[in-house]
C-alpha cells in the first residue's frame, strides 16, 4: 500500500472550526475525544493551531460574519487537508435554509470531503464517518456526491 497515504490517514490532527453553531455539535466533537470513545486509537488528536491540522470539522450554519473567516482559515491550513461538514446545519443548512443571515451553504465555499448529518451527530457517527472518509481516500469505496 501507498506509504504516504497510510501516514496521512493514520495520524489525523483535527482543528475544530465553528461557524455560528448552537454548540451542540462542538460538544459532541469534544465527546468524541473523551476516554469513552478514544479517538487517539486512530491517531486523531485535537491541535491548537490550524497550521498543524489535517482535517477541519466545520460545524454551524455559516452565517455572513463567518464567511471571510472560514475562507481565511482554510487557506492557512497546510495542504493536504480535508474538510468535514458536521451536523445538519453545515451539511444542508437545516432549519436556517431560508434564513437571511446564512445564505451560503458550507460546500459552496469549501471543498467538503464528507458530510456527517445529525442534530447533533453522535460520536459513533463521527468516528464511522471519518473511517469512511479514510476508506474513500484509499480508493476502496466510492461515496456518491451530493
Amino acid at each position, binding site marked *: 500500500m501507498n506509504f*504516504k497515504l497510510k501516514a496521512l490517514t*493514520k*495520524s489525523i490532527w483535527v482543528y475544530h472550526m465553528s461557524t455560528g453553531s448552537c454548540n451542540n455539535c462542538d460538544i459532541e466533537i469534544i465527546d468524541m475525544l473523551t476516554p*469513552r470513545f*478514544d479517538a487517539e486509537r486512530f*491517531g486523531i488528536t*485535537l491541535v*491548537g493551531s490550524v497550521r498543524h491540522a489535517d482535517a477541519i470539522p466545520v460545524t454551524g450554519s455559516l452565517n455572513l460574519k463567518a464567511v471571510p473567516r472560514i475562507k481565511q482559515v482554510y487557506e492557512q491550513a497546510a495542504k*493536504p487537508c480535508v474538510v468535514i461538514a458536521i451536523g445538519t446545519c453545515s451539511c444542508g443548512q437545516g432549519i436556517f435554509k431560508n434564513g437571511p443571515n446564512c445564505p451560503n451553504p458550507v460546500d459552496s465555499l469549501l471543498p467538503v470531503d464528507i458530510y456527517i448529518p445529525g442534530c447533533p451527530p453522535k460520536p459513533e457517527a463521527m468516528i464511522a464517518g471519518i473511517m469512511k472518509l479514510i476508506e474513500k481516500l484509499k480508493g476502496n469505496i466510492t461515496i456518491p456526491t451530493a
Partner: protein
Amino acid sequence: MLKYLFNFVIFPGFLFTACFGLMACWIDRKVTSRIQWRVGPPWYQPFMDLVKLSIKEIIVPRTASKELFFLSPMLGLSAATLVSMLVWLVNIDPGSKGFSGDIIVIVYLLTIPAIAVILGASASGNPLASLGASREIKMVMAYELPFIISLIVPIIKSHGLLRLNEIINYQVANGPFITSLSGIIAFIVMIFCIQAKLGLVPFDASEAETEIMGGTFIEYSGMLLAIFKLTKTMLMVVLPLFLITLFWQGFSFLSLWKYVIILVIIILIRNTNPRVRIDQAVRFFWGKMTLLAVLAVLLAVKGL
C-alpha cells in the same frame, strides 16, 4: 573522521536517539492513555506523525523573517544530536574518555534547543508566538538557575571532577551519589528542571494549546514542525540519560530500567498536575527549587 561521522549520524547520534526517543514518546502516550482509562495509540503512532508532518506543505507567513524561520529548527536539532552523541558515547563506549569539561559543554548545548524555539517563534511574526517566546525566555531563566546549582553537587561529591567519564568511574568505585542525602535532593530538583526543559505539562505555558493555540509553534507546519517535535523527543532521551550519568552510576543497556523509572516519573508528574502560570513557575523555580539546590550543595560540602 569517518568514525565520528558514523557516531554523529547513525549509531549513538541522530538516527538511534531519534528511534529511541520515538519509542519513549509512544510509552509516554500509552501510559497517559492508560491513566485516563483508554486504549491509546499503536506503537508506530509517533513515527506516523513524523512521516505525515514531513510530507505536508510548509507555509511561511508573509510577516516572517524567512532565514531565521527555516534555520532555527535545524539549530535546535543539531544541538540535540551533538549532545545525545556526547552523552551516549560516555556511557556505552568504554574507549571514549570524553574531554575535560564536557559537563559544561553539555549544559550549554542543552540550552540551545530552547533558544532555537525562542528564535523561531519570534521570527514567525505572530503575536501569539511572540507571547509564547516571552514565556519561554522566562522559563529558561527560571529553570537554569536550580539546574546549574544542583549540577555542582556531583562535582563537589567527586572532589572536583569535570569529566563525565571520571564521574561515572568515581561512582562505580564509591557508590552512586543518589544514595546520599545531598544527591537525592539534587536529583529531585533536576527532575523538575528536566520537566520544564522538555516543556511538559506543569511547565508548558509557552506552548499552551488551549490558551495561546500552540504558542511558539503556532506558525510552524510540515517538515519544520516535525523537526521541532523530533528535537523534543531526542531531548526526552538525552536529559534522563544525563541525569543517570551524573547521579546513578551511568547507563548501559542492561540498566534500561533506570531510564524507564525516570521516564515514568516524568509522565506521572505530567499527568497529575495542571498547567501553572508563568509567574507561578518562576516563583517555584527561583524559590523552593533554588533553596533546595543550595541546601544540597551545602550538604555536599559537609560530605553528606
